[in-house]
């Protein structure tokens, strides 16, 4: 969906902000760019929608080389969210959201319906918020509008530059959760710039860690935590988190709320509702395997309750699964989801910072 080939950016003053950057982001992926201030994250992001032109190299968006593309046209099909929010203060919330759909020539019925639908999606009651002005909203509410404004014209790609950094911690976490939830439903290609490793671990499908205009490691959150490429990455992730990976055992983060259901036969089991996966035990409580729509799945991996987080992370990574059955010897004792593991990684930095 987005591809960089040996992209360089040297600013007019001779500063090389981005150096020979090559990477690819697939459709539906949420990729975070992270790194210290000034490492070139914003520059990289703004080259995707041609707010900045690369000095050399080629950028492809949806298979097309954007060098010749019209910037305005390109940007109308790429959502854009910035830290300072930037809602138009003289327009109502509805007018703000409908701005690009209107410029794209949508009919009134269509964009009005879209505005209400989007407000509903982020929990802002349309009848109450439609005709308010941005300055009447709290920071968190304003950025919710910032996010849905970027979604309004249904762009396949969304760029977000530290969108939640300026918010208070509570709003920030709410918006992260909402974004994750929205992304789960709409599966856009999202490029998300942040300097907060917790945020990156929580949200990303893959994380690109940048330093001095280059990508140092581009990997999944699990891989980053379990096998950091070098000292820089280790520092970034933090020693406490790295230690946790081998010292914490699965037992500490078992999902407490996965119900054991009685399947009626001689099996009972844990059910993962969204995937309709069933993990079953026999009547003597030994684990009987994973079932999908009633059929047994061969070789579905499982993990022991006293295994460490690294083992779990590696399994999620290699097997590309979302949930693992957790066994105590041969008994099924619970389930571990990939989300739960990542949430745990993300949460660690904060606990470390507090102590």
């Amino acid at each position: 969906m987005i591809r960089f080939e040996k992209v360089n950016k040297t600013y007019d003053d001779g500063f090389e902000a981005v150096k020979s950057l090559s990477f690819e982001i697939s459709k539906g992926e949420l990729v975070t760019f992270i790194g210290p201030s000034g490492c070139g994250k914003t520059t990289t992001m703004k080259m995707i929608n041609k707010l900045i032109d690369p000095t050399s190299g080629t950028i492809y968006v949806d298979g097309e080389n954007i060098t010749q593309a019209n910037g305005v046209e390109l940007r109308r099909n790429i959502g854009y969210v910035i830290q300072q929010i930037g809602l138009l203060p003289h327009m109502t919330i509805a007018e703000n959201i409908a701005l690009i759909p209107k410029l794209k020539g949508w009919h009134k019925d269509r964009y009005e319906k879209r505005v209400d639908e989007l407000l509903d999606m982020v929990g802002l009651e349309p009848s109450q918020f439609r005709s308010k002005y941005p300055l009447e909203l709290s920071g968190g509410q304003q950025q919710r509008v910032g996010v849905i404004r970027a979604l309004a014209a249904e762009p396949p790609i969304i760029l977000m530059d530290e969108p939640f950094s300026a918010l208070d911690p509570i709003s920030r976490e709410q918006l992260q959760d909402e974004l994750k939830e929205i992304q789960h439903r709409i599966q856009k290609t999202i490029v998300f710039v942040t300097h907060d490793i917790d945020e990156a671990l929580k949200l990303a499908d893959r994380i690109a860690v940048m330093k001095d205009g280059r990508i140092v490691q581009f990997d999944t959150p699990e891989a980053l935590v379990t096998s950091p490429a070098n000292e820089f990455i280790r520092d970034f992730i933090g020693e406490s988190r790295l230690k946790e990976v081998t010292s914490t055992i699965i037992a500490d983060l078992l999902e407490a709320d996965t119900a054991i259901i009685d399947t009626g036969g001689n099996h009972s089991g844990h059910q993962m509702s969204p995937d309709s996966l069933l993990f079953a035990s026999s009547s003597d409580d030994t684990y009987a395997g994973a079932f999908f729509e009633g059929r047994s799945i061969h070789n579905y991996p499982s993990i022991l309750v006293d295994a460490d987080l690294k083992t779990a992370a590696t399994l999620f990574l290699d097997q590309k699964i979302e949930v693992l059955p957790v066994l105590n010897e041969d008994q099924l004792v619970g389930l571990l989801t990939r989300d739960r593991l990542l949430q745990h990684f993300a949460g660690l930095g904060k606990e470390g910072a507090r102590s």
Partner: protein
Amino acid sequence: MIEPLHLFFINTVMTRSDDIWEGMVEHLFLSFTAIFIAIIIALPLGIFVSRQRKLADLFIGITSVFQTIPSLAFFGFLIPIFGTGTVTAITALTVYSLLPILRNTYTGIITVDQAVIEAGRGMGMTENQILTKIELPLSLPFIMAGIRTATVLTVGVATLATFVGAGGLGELIYRGLSTWNNQLVLAGAIPAAFLALFFDFILKRIELRATPKGLKRQ
């Protein structure tokens, strides 16, 4: 018997009402023609220098230099070029009106929150749409304040138009001065002051109206 002063003044106003009326019409014509031309020049110029900030100091500098020239002297300088009459008066008044409008347009535009412009551009608004949908609406109160300042200034300075033979309320004042007739001076000065206050009031109202709803204090 000596009449009380104010009765004497009312008497002057009554007998000179035609002159006062004519002076007022000329005065308004001169002032508004000048303001109108100044807006046509200074507004686009203000937008232009907000795009070419290096030139902003130069243009604003030039217009402020004109404003430091004493008004009467400036009218005088123009006579060799345009002769006497309406054209000279309007030219001088236009030049005086430029600075407030230019400076406020420029300041209004460059003080628009850059984040809003950045968001607009990032969403795919054209430069023209950024100007008409973001920058101008948000700087309108500034621009209106500039026009108000220019108007009050011009209505005042227009009393000097009579020295280049362009009439206006200044004519009554000038005639009053040269004939030692204070009542006549007042018959010109009071309507001129009234006009300035009146337009200040009206334009202040328009300025408040021009403030976008979302920016007014709730």
